[in-house]
């Protein structure tokens, strides 16, 4: 009964979406204000029924209704209640419902918070968002319906994948989707700008906070994914260049370029076609990501259960959306002529450089992800593209981009001079070199070229951002939220680079044989297995070990690695790492296999400053939020 109600809800939502995508656009073309204003009601209608559908699905999970196929595939009566709810987005169908819900959430937000935008443009934006909704709703209803019945009902569910039974699943997908879907708003703004043929750049001022918000959410979503993989998967890595990771990273890279380009277009009225293109491409990459993850075209540890029919549908959706927008772009963009000029040494130039480097970085990730497919399609053999490639191509590009970020806060619009920039930043450069040289001596005992370069880059970004902030503080101009956000975000970049550099250069790992009571020495620490015991917890059986790490007899960490067997999937042994976290480093141990001698093989790792990676990313997101809150975006038009 409830499942059928859910079915009806999503169909009604589709009807609203159809109305939302057509009537307001017609209203713009035929100058009928009522039709344009109706966009708000259609958007709200769609939202209410999607909210209802989502709630119903969650409730059905709570009730353990295994007569619904999706629930039978992804849940189990032993599953703790919080994971039963988050299992809603644990599989393909439900995550699609979440995606569509988020889209309507953003749409309603636009109706609510963008009232200062002229109604014609607003109507176009909401219509475009409606069109995207229609596409995804059709996809879900026709090929991936979460409310499909399983008759006769299963006695027990297959259970949620143990790897997903973790707080990470509760937050990571929603955050990620908020970001992914959020970029549809800046996309809709860009399309509306092309459709209306407006020459001015007012739309960029309106679009910018939406892009910043989406970017901030995407940043948090990605960093949560990385953090979750780190503590959940047991191998201690935080990024694998897996196709699905790349699928989220590409829009992030272009989204970063978009944020910077929007700043230029808003301030100086130039780069207009480029900004529009970036907005279109960023969202296109979000759609491409959805395709890659759900079509089975690439192998990934993240990929949802795949089906070529679904893949074809998403591809058609992707094709219509992107080809349509790019045709509109090719037709209308030549009209968007910029009216400002700038010199070779200026903030505009710096941002242009950032865009080129971020664009090239995004291209690198795109090529790396798709090249195996391209060569296979051309019958030219099968290759793998993994971390070694990205380390050699991506890292230099991203590093160069960070190099110039430092200059961004200092340089002047329109016309600046090389000597002025040097006079502002020479102190920062010296401080950076000094800190990079001294830090390793304080904490560790060795040098590495890579670490030196990385730390120099990090400190360079940090000190130059500090300098920009101090200069602004001392000047008569106020520090508005936008500027503050930039400083915080750039410092976040510095923190991020520091984390990566140190953990890569000074982290270590050692495979050991843990035997109860036997102490092992390595790199000035000793570790010993104190105990190993079986416990039954909720829906799994765990073998929990206690491992003490000490230096000079003093305990510095007590780790509790586990091996779990979930009752519903007894053939799967899952490893849960024992981690002791601190801001300056983590101790990390994961169990391997039982040894014939009675002990267990284990991998011991030390990860210095690894938390800086996510801390830095969090600062970046925070910076984005601050910038979005800038009062100049909330000023109402007096018309």
């Amino acid at each position: 009964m409830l499942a059928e109600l859910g079915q009806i809800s999503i169909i009604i939502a589709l009807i609203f979406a159809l109305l939302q995508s057509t009537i307001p656009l017609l209203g713009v073309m035929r100058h009928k204000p009522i039709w344009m204003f109706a966009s708000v009601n259609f958007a709200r209608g769609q939202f209410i029924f999607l909210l209802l559908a989502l709630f119903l699905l969650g409730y059905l999970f709570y009730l353990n209704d295994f007569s619904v196929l999706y629930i039978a595939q992804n849940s189990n009566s032993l599953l703790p209640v919080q994971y039963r709810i988050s299992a809603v987005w644990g599989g393909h169908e439900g995550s699609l419902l979440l995606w569509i819900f988020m889209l309507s959430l953003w749409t309603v937000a636009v109706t609510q918070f963008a009232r200062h935008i002229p109604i014609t443009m607003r109507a176009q934006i909401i219509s475009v968002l409606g069109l995207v909704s229609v596409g995804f709703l059709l996809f879900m209803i026709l090929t991936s319906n979460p409310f499909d019945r399983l008759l006769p009902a299963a006695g027990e569910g297959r259970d949620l994948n143990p790897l997903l039974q973790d707080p990470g699943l509760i937050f990571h997908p929603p955050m990620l989707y908020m970001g992914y879907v959020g970029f549809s708003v800046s996309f809709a703004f860009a399309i509306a700008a092309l459709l209306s043929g407006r020459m001015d750049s007012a739309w960029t001022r309106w679009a910018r906070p939406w892009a910043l918000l989406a970017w901030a959410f995407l940043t948090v979503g990605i960093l949560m994914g990385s953090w979750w993989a780190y503590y959940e998967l047991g191998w201690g890595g935080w990024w694998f260049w897996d196709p699905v990771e790349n699928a989220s990273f590409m829009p992030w890279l272009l989204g970063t370029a978009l944020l910077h380009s929007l700043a230029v277009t808003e301030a100086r009225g130039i780069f207009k076609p480029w900004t529009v293109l970036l907005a279109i491409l960023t969202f296109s990459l979000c759609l491409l990501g959805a395709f890659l993850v759900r079509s089975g075209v690439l192998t990934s540890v993240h990929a949802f259960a795949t089906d070529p029919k679904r893949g074809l549908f998403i591809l058609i959706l992707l094709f219509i959306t992107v080809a349509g927008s790019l045709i509109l772009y090719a037709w209308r963009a030549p009209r968007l002529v910029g009216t400002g000029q700038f010199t070779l040494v200026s903030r505009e130039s710096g941002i242009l450089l950032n865009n080129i480097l971020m664009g090239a970085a995004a291209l690198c990730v795109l090529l790396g992800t798709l090249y195996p497919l391209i060569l296979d399609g051309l019958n030219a053999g099968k290759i793998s593209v993994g971390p070694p490639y990205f380390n050699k191509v991506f890292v230099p590009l991203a590093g160069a981009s960070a190099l110039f970020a430092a200059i961004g806060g200092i340089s002047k619009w329109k016309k600046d001079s090389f000597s002025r920039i040097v006079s502002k930043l020479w102190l920062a450069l010296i401080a950076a070199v000094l800190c990079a040289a001294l830090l390793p001596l304080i904490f560790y005992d060795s040098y590495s070229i890579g670490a030196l370069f990385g730390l120099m880059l990090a400190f360079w970004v940090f000190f130059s951002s500090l300098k920009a902030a101090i200069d602004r503080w001392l000047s008569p101009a106020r520090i508005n939220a936008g500027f503050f956000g930039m400083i915080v975000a750039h410092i976040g970049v510095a923190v991020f680079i520091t984390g990566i550099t140190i953990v890569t250069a000074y982290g270590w790992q050692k495979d050991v044989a843990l035997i109860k009571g036997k102490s092992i020495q390595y790199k000035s620490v000793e570790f010993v297995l104190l105990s190993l015991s079986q416990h039954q917890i909720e829906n799994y059986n765990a073998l929990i070990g206690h491992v003490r790490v000490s230096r000079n007899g003093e305990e510095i960490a007590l780790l509790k690695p586990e091996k779990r067997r979930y009752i519903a999937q007894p053939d799967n042994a899952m490893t849960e790492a024992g981690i002791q976290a601190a801001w300056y480093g983590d101790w990390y141990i994961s169990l391997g296999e039982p040894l014939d001698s009675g002990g267990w093989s284990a991998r011991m790792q030390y990860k210095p400053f690894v938390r800086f990676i996510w801390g830095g990313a969090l600062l970046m997101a925070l910076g984005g939020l601050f910038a979005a809150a800038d009062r100049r975006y909330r000023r109402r038009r007096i018309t």
Partner: protein
Amino acid sequence: MKYFIPLLIFLCLTVFLLIGLKLDPRLVPSPYINKPAPSFSLSRLDNQSIAVQRDDFLGKTWVLNVWASWCRACLDEHPLLLSLPKNINLVGLNYKDDKTDAKNWLLRWGNPYSLSLSDTDGKVGFDWGVYGVPETFVIDAAGVVRYKHIGPLQENDINEELLPLLKRLSTPQ
């Protein structure tokens, strides 16, 4: 005109994505196609004292099928192997298996092989680039690998690929 470039690039990309839907990203093709088969020396499953070498097979096209008694999918393709024409020299590579289990399996389900070789530790399979079971190779009279099929053989694999290939290789050029 330059504004059309993004569209053109995207159209090319779509073509590849469309092609990609038909491909299987997990398949690892063999680097031995059109190259000499790796050499080996293994004992027969039915008689441990007899050693068989790669070069023993020169002069006639032969088919190597990698199988094991613990392999569920091998059972699926087994009836098709039994129904292959008798003039095909089907040789089994018993991969990482217990000899008794293997012999019992053949007794129970039928033996389509002219002979089976014992690759108990999987070293020969490794040299041949085997990474899953079952796999099937076609080697021509000169000892060159001409074809590899990954996974259980199905009717149309046999009818549309295997048999025509064997026919081509047997007819004198």
